C-alpha cells in the first residue's frame, strides 16, 4: 500500500529564510514522486516531479527536491522564500498505474 507522511503541518518563516519541508513515503514499486502547491484561492499546481535519473530535481519558482531512496524521502527545499510562497504544499507518490496518494499537506506562511 502507498502512504505519504509530511512532518510539518504548519511552518512560519520570514522572507529570505531557507525552507525545507519533509516528506517520507512508503511504496513497494517503482516510485514517481511529486510536490504540488495550492496558493490561496487557487487550484493544485505541480511544483516538481521525480521519475528517475538525477535525484535532485528542480521545479518552478526556485524550488527543488531531493530523492533519497535509502531514507524513502523526497524533501522540498528553497534557499530563500518570498511572501508570495505562502501556500499549502502537498507531497504525493504515484504508482505506475496512475494511483496517487497525497500527504496531508504543510501550510507555509511567509511573513514580509
Amino acid at each position: 500500500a502507498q502512504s505519504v507522511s509530511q512532518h510539518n503541518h504548519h511552518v512560519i518563516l520570514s522572507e529570505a529564510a531557507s525552507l525545507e519541508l519533509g516528506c517520507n513515503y512508503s511504496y513497494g514499486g517503482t516510485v514517481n514522486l511529486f510536490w504540488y502547491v495550492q496558493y490561496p484561492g487557487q487550484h493544485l499546481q505541480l511544483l516538481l516531479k521525480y521519475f528517475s535519473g538525477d535525484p535532485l530535481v528542480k521545479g518552478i519558482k526556485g524550488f527543488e527536491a531531493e530523492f533519497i531512496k535509502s531514507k524513502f524521502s523526497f524533501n522540498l527545499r528553497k534557499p530563500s522564500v518570498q511572501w508570495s510562497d505562502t501556500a499549502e504544499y502537498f507531497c504525493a507518490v504515484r504508482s505506475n498505474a496512475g494511483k496517487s496518494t497525497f500527504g496531508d499537506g504543510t501550510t507555509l506562511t511567509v511573513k514580509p
Partner: protein
Amino acid sequence: EAGVAQSPRYKIIEKRQSVAFWCNPISGHATLYWYQQILGQGPKLLIQFQNNGVVDDSQLPKDRFSAERLKGVDSTLKIQPAKLEDSAVYLCASSLEPSGAYEQYFGPGTRLTVT
C-alpha cells in the same frame, strides 16, 4: 489550452439530500480522477477512469457515491444520500495517460457543505 473545468464551485445541501458534480477534463486526456479533500487533509482518490471504464474505485463509498464517464469525456460524481461527513472539496483531475509519468492537472474543485 483550457484547464479542467468543474461545476458548481460551491454547494450547500442538507443531510440526506442528493448532489451531483460535473467535470470536463482537458481535451484528449484519457484518464480522469475524482478526489475528496477533507479540511486539513490531502486529496484522497475516490475513482479513476480510463476513457469510460473504471480503473480503480476501491475507495469509493459505493453505498452512497456513484460516478460515470459517458463517452469517455465528461464525468459526473453523485452523492445520494449525503451525510455530514461528506463535507469536503471534490477535485477532478485528468492526465493524458494513466501512467505515473504523466502529469495530473487539477480543476478548481467543488466545495460541498452538508448541514
